[in-house]
């Protein structure tokens, strides 16, 4: 069995480490590229949202690299993601790629189904070993998030443009190659990479919160390296969701202590969005409210074109923006998104925020 899985930012590092330590043979799909997107756009339904198209592209490229099984998350609605795996499998079957889909989702009939699916990956490993592997993968995700948060602080303050991103690449490599039991040493080495970046600590920066749908938040290919772009524009950007938080929230049911949960965001969204609407709609609204209360300078919302929960959130955000006095910009991303257009809008938004901030200071 040669296992693969779809890409979402740095997710592959954690999943690969977990599967490796379980002794599974892992075939990583090539990093998401223009070719991945073209394949997805050609074979996926036209009206489907962007993550589905990229998944299809990833799976085709994984099959070309020799994968015969893919692991995919699922769900039970109301967001389209819950039916991704079934539609993707039908598309791939039609194309002649007969991949076996292991969908990790709440079972329809009996917990046995899910256990059997997990068992087919883990083979004869004991549950104790499985738990260890999951912890290892999750540990890496936490390290990566910590590094990223640090990098987001460093970018607007770096003296040599681009030095943070070079250091971050080295740091992520340390984590990606860390073996079980050596994670903390690797993390220290990775931190050391970042700390070599020369910085000007008291440089004035603009603070921006980035909220929205998780795939567009986490996948730099889709958001055209938004976090780096913001950093280069002198913005200290933070995100409403990080990978480890998402894993803890959705896969571990918030079991792991000491990790920021989305509960406070959901609570904060109450006055604006009275009910959950699937996906991250409520979290987007709530996080924006919280950013407004923390006096962050601006909020950027990301969503894939036609994303239902985020469209609801988008319309509610205008009220949040008005009430909290925080500028909000919505970026809709799809296969047509052009770099020049995005850059122009980002620069204009950041200029506006900087102007406002200057006005208040003066």
């Amino acid at each position, binding site marked *: 069995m040669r296992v693969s899985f779809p890409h979402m930012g740095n997710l592959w590092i954690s999943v690969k480490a977990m599967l490796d330590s379980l002794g599974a043979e892992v075939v990583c799909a090539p990093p998401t590229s223009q070719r991945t997107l073209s394949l997805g756009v050609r074979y996926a339904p036209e009206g489907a949202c962007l993550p589905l198209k990229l998944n299809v592209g990833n799976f085709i490229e994984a099959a070309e690299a020799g994968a015969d099984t893919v692991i995919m998350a699922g769900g039970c609605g*109301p967001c*389209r993601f819950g039916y991704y795996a079934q539609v993707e499998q*039908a598309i791939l079957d039609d194309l002649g790629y007969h991949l076996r889909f292991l969908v990790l989702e709440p079972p329809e009939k009996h917990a046995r189904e899910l256990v059997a699916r997990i068992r087919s990956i883990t083979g004869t490993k004991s549950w104790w070993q499985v738990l260890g592997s999951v912890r290892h993968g999750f540990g890496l995700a936490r390290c990566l998030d910590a590094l990223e948060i640090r990098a987001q602080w460093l970018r607007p303050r770096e003296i040599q443009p681009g030095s943070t991103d070079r250091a971050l690449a080295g740091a992520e490599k340390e984590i990606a190659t860390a073996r079980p039991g050596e994670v903390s040493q690797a993390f220290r080495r990775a931190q050391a990479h970042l700390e070599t970046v020369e910085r000007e600590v008291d440089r004035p920066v603009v603070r921006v919160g980035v909220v929205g749908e998780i795939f567009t938040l986490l996948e730099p290919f889709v958001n055209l390296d938004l976090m780096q772009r913001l950093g280069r524009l002198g913005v200290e950007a933070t995100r409403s969701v990080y990978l480890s938080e998402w894993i803890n929230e959705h896969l571990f049911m918030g079991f792991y202590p000491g990790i920021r949960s989305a509960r406070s965001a959901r609570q904060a969204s109450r006055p604006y969005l009275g*009910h959950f*609407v699937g996906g991250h*709609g409520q979290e987007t609204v709530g996080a924006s409210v919280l950013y407004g209360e923390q006096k962050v300078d601006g909020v950027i919302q990301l969503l894939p074109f036609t994303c239902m929960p985020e469209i609801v959130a*988008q*319309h509610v955000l205008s009220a949040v923006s008005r009430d909290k006095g925080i500028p909000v910009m919505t970026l809709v991303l799809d296969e047509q998104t052009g770099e020049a257009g995005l850059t122009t809008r980002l620069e204009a938004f950041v200029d506006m925020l900087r102007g406002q901030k200057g006005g208040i200071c003066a």
Partner: protein
Amino acid sequence: MKPVVGIPRALLYYQYYPLWRTFLDGLGVAVVVSPPTGRAILQDGLAALGTDVCLPVKVAAGHLMALRDKVDLIFLPRLVSAAKREYACPKLMGLPDLVRHSLDLPPLLAPVIDRYRHDNWPLLRVALALGHRLGASVPTVVRAYRRALACHRQYVQTMEAGYFPDEAGEAVCAGKPLDKRAPAEAVVAVIGHPYTVYDREINLNLAGRLSRMGLGVCTAEQVPEATVRRAATALPKHLFWTAGQQVVGAAFHYLTENRVAGMISVMSFGCGPDSMTGELIARQARQSGRIPHLTLTLDEHAAETGVLTRLEAFLDMVLSRREGDIATCG
């Protein structure tokens, strides 16, 4: 004085109007329904909401704007789940908030309809809360509630007997039951959400055009729920949208029914569930290969000529196939 309650003729209206109407009438409030969708309503809706929302929600915004100066309250339930372990589309779940923050509207009556865990209890609770808000006594509410449910059952049965929502709704609300309509010899199945299939303005009067060409029309609402659910079990996984079940199940059913000579999927541009169910239906239609299948995607830019050309080409195919059948039979 009892308040005037407005019902927008959009989205869930097509499925639940007789139920709502009977209930609100029973509580003694005056009910105003917005007029059928027209140019002006469509334009208002397009101007009111951002570009990313799907056409049906924009149409709904137009209807809300048409009501806002005429009523004290607008009845706009938040449909979360219409059946156990199923959901509505996220935009319907967030609709009251979406329009509340984007349009300037009178207060909304937006009860939460959530049957995800339990079937009946949540409905009665919603009815009682609504009655309380509108100042009706508990016995009045219970009486209105029971009458509304009976009315709804009758409405569903009338549609299953071959009638469109407007005919069925009128008959049921007037208390005049309709006989089962004799099925047409050759029909085209028009499959899609009720608010696109029955709104003549946005689907360019599809049903009217078909019947002028001598073809009957059958829709998803004319298939009994049990049949729909049975047909939908052919899917690889339980579909978690109730409306999607209806669409896919009815389409799968019509693909095997002999009198159906062709099928048109009517989708809205930007509709999330449609993008998935449309794919599932198109695949099944292609695999069965028995009848021609056309997908029409509607948006506010739908140019009449383009749609007509495609429709005519499709109908030529349907009719020539039928003549072929008759020839081979003879």
